[in-house]
């Protein structure tokens, strides 16, 4: 009850006209930078930080939160329509979303992403308000061995979604793991696979690789196919522009499940937004009544990961507000924003600056409402993009992709990487190797490696630490079950569908 009254008090701060205006400015800016390639929410907040120095703390923090949430929304738009994910968390969205868009179902894809983000954002913000202090305690108890076990679960469940041939999927995964090794080894400081090129010392940017593999590779594939028979044009709208009753029925469970993955993992200090989107995608595929539709534009594959993505953004605020631990680039810059006003996030923040904290949490609810009001009417406008003739559309995508990469990191090496990987992606498409495992391997590989080595370093090389922690033991058991379960069920002659739901 105390929480509720504090929240109501926060709402009264958030609905002051000036703060509403800041929230609006934040979500509009956030959506804009999310749609534009190369400028993420982190950079936007960093650029605005000095400007807001003289502003009222509550107002500017509310604006930053609006940018954060808005960026998450905007990123999904380009992923779905142009197959160019602007940030790593919307890579999974591109996989099914772009297929839907090209089948004339861009409208429902955008709508399920927007409404899913709203549902997930609202539930996750409520969870943030109620459980934040308690959850923070649980989250820091997560050690490296537990993270490693979580990565194992992600690897195993995701590898089930690798397309028709396991061997081809694993080959792609190995390419991704190799790309993930490039750069300075995080634990020893030694360079790996950087071939003396200083630009490679920080490793490859995930978004650069994703844009090269998805957008550039596909543009080349489309160009190579031109003039051949059976290549129809992309239809902008086929069927309803809005979600049908069927779409709603197929979307609501993935929204809730995505939230359940996104919020807790986002709250972990090393959780991030990528793993929950992978797990959500894998779960939806496994639970779907029509798994064969995955890879060809299944709405569940957009609804779940998008919800997970947004829920994890709210989760990130748990360690930031309660412990002063930033767990994403944007959160790190928001922390700098707090410090600019001499507010020190941490256990004392809820006591010393209750007004600011609850005002911020309340404004997250408001930002969510504003985002959906802002985004749904734009769906019709966005999908028109797809009626642009194909050579122009793909030409535009190429420009968009390269400009985005250069905006994020102005270096010729980066451009070379995009072109080289784009060429490789074209080859992989040509010979029917799946693309997604490359990106999955590149994101999960380095995380898993770092956490495993950290766990062993702390335990002085004693590998039993991987199974003695209750959290990691449970997660590893889940992984074994996910690996062996389907085989056992199949052998016992059970239909996998029989005991679900």
């Amino acid at each position: 009850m105390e929480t509720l009254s504090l929240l109501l008090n926060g709402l009264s701060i958030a609905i002051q006209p000036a703060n509403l205006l800041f929230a609006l400015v934040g979500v509009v800016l956030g959506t804009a930078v999310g749609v534009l390639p190369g400028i993420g929410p982190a950079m936007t907040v960093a650029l605005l930080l000095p400007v807001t120095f003289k502003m009222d703390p509550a107002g500017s923090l509310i604006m930053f939160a609006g940018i954060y949430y808005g960026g998450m929304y905007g990123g999904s738009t380009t992923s779905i329509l142009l197959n160019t994910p602007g940030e790593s968390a919307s890579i999974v969205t591109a996989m099914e979303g772009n297929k839907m868009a090209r089948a004339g179902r861009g409208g429902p894809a955008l709508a399920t992403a927007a409404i899913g983000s709203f549902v997930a954002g609202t539930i996750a913000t409520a969870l943030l308000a109620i459980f934040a202090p308690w959850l923070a305690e649980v989250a820091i108890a997560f050690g490296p061995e537990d993270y490693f076990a979580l990565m194992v679960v992600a690897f195993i469940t995701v590898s089930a979604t690798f397309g028709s041939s396991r061997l081809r999927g694993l080959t792609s995964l190995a390419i991704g793991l190799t790309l993930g090794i490039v750069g300075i080894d995080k634990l020893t400081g030694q360079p790996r696979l950087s071939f003396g090129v200083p630009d490679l010392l920080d490793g490859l940017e995930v978004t650069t690789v994703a844009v090269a593999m998805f957008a550039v590779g596909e543009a080349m594939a489309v160009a190579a196919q031109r003039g051949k028979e059976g290549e129809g044009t992309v239809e902008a709208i086929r069927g309803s522009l809005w979600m049908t009753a069927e779409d709603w029925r197929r979307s609501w469970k993935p929204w809730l499940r995505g939230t359940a993955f996104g919020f807790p993992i986002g709250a972990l200090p090393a959780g991030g937004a990528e793993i929950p989107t992978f797990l959500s995608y894998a779960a939806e595929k496994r639970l779907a009544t029509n798994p064969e539709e995955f890879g060809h534009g299944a709405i569940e594959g957009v609804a779940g990961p998008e919800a997970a993505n947004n829920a994890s953004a709210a989760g990130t605020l748990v360690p930031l507000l309660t412990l002063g631990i930033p767990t994403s680039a944007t959160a790190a810059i928001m922390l700098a924003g707090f410090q600019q006003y001499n507010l020190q996030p941490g256990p004392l923040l809820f006591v010393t600056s209750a007004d600011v904290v609850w005002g911020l949490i309340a404004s997250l609810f408001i930002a969510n409402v504003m985002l959906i009001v802002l985004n749904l009417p734009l769906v019709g406008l966005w999908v028109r993009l797809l009626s642009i003739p194909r050579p122009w559309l793909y030409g535009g995508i190429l420009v968009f992709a390269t400009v985005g990469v250069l905006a994020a990191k102005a270096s010729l090496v980066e451009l070379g990487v995009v072109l080289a990987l784009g060429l490789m992606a074209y080859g992989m498409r040509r010979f029917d190797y799946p693309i997604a495992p490359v990106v999955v391997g590149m994101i999960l590989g380095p995380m898993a490696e770092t956490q495993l080595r950290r766990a062993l370093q702390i335990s002085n090389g004693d590998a039993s630490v991987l199974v003695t922690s209750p959290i990691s033991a449970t997660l590893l058991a889940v992984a074994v079950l996910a690996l062996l379960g389907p085989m056992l069920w199949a052998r016992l002659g059970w239909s996998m569908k029989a005991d679900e739901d």
Partner: protein
Amino acid sequence: MSTITRREAVALGAGLAAVLAHPAIAQAPTELKLLAPAAPGGGWDQTARTMQSVLTGERLVRSAQVTNVAGAGGTIGIAQFVNSSRGDPGALMISGFVMVGAILMNKAPVTLDAVTPVARLTGEWQALVVSAASPIKSVADLAAAVKADVSRVSWGGGSAGGVDHITAAMFAGLAGADGGKVNYIAHSGGGEAMAAILSNRVTVGVGGVSEFEQHVKSRRLRWLGITAPEGTAGLPGPTLTAGGLKLELQNWRGVFGGPGLSDAQKAGLGEVVEKMAKSKAWADQLAAKGWQDTYLAADAFAAFLKEENARVEGVLRNLGLVRA
């Protein structure tokens, strides 16, 4: 000079320089380009943006522009700076302790020798902390544990070869163990390291003083010691020296001009930066951010750099992070 305002002094300086163009008179630039060789949000970027707001707010220059060139501990930024700012009297690059280490470790082709030291500006002391539940109560306890078996003591901090790692290695060396064998668990970003320290998963945590202050206040962490000299004012906890182990180290930041500047251009840059560093607005910003004012003018800064480079190189060599 004390009878005229800063603004007049700058105008006068600039006017004189323009009219006379005499090499002995400082040529203070009116437009500055600040290069932060790191991504937006980090310490160098914040330094650049703070400078920008103070320089323009106090009207020391007409405009100041910040660009970010991220990558490889700043070694990409410095390479670009040397190429693009040769003889440019209005270009400044932010740098610091971390770049000294990164240049050595990455065997960077362009080093700080290629640029012109202008001033050291700020610094942060390092601190060693333990979780409230830790059996280690004092610097002596930690030193004894390190000496008994250096690999059993795990250190949680930032990136490998960075200031935290160097602090840990120096502590082990001073405690009588092999600094090169220190069991250092590197983390990217402050968040993950803090979680490991708070949950008592690592034996000891190392990082900037301001990162830990809040957690010590809420009694989740305890100070072991701070790497400041004995008697430094305004420290939130005891020094390492007071605990019986003389380890002094500061994570400093400063600014450099481009290569090939004339003496007058150098003096002009130095003048603008000094005025900024002595302003009240700058002092207020430092206080808000928990940074120490460690201003050193060009010559003293250059001498300091030489010493610092030798010291860091020794530690990194012992860690095996720099090879001949």
